[in-house]
């Protein structure tokens, strides 16, 4: 395996993009493709970062771009992030002050339900 996987899943009509392992400028384009594809298919979207062990500002840019598109399309768009403070993936959201910008849930059922209900803020 030369790149950590990005897996597209479906739960109750909601697209779930699962991001595993480390992601940066190299894999951000692949993530962008998955996010845009789901939004173009008018699916509410959950981005599951619970299995991610590293993300950087390239990945954040993709998440922000997806959020903008989702809001334009009036689609649900939520993130699953580990809840414990200081977890490495949560850290970049905290340091950049972007936690309030996204709709973040700690568990998949909550994230799927929120996205399904059109939550994107």
């Amino acid at each position: 395996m030369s790149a950590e996987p990005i897996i597209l899943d479906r739960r109750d009509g909601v697209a779930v993009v699962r991001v595993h392992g480390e992601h940066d400028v190299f894999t951000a384009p692949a993530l962008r493709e998955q996010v845009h594809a789901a939004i173009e298919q008018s699916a509410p979207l959950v981005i599951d970062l619970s299995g991610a062990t590293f993300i950087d500002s390239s990945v954040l840019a993709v998440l922000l771009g997806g959020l903008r598109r989702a809001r334009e399309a009036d689609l649900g768009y939520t993130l699953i992030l580990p809840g414990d403070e200081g977890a490495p993936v949560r850290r970049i959201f905290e340091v950049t002050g972007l936690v309030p910008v996204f709709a973040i849930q700690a568990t998949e059922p909550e994230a799927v339900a929120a996205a399904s209900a059109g939550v994107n803020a």
Partner: protein
Amino acid sequence: MVTTPMAARSSVQTAVPSRIEVSAIAAGPVLARVFGIVGARAGLSLDRVSDLLLLADTIADADVHADARVTVEFSIADGQVELVVGPLADGGAEALTSSPKIGGVAVLPRLADQVEVLGSGADARRVRLVVA
């Protein structure tokens, strides 16, 4: 399929080597992580990646390096990882290729598909290894 950003270029261009120099103290964890990712990227099997990690430990722990600095140049071609270790201290090339042993058997030739000392006599300062 992964698309690369417009401003980036592929590492097919060979004008720039990939080279790591690390102090002997930190060499173990550094080489293990770098060899691990290089092996995965080359598409080596899990067993061969494990062998690469053993090679990392062997190289890091061997007292063969000039100035207590471990230097390795690495590249990937045709699904193989090529490593060039050195500069080594006097006698270091011979020591690295024959003396780290497990159960009386030299480790490097067990782990690498090719083991080659570069240079000869007093100029034998580097060892080339290929893992496929």
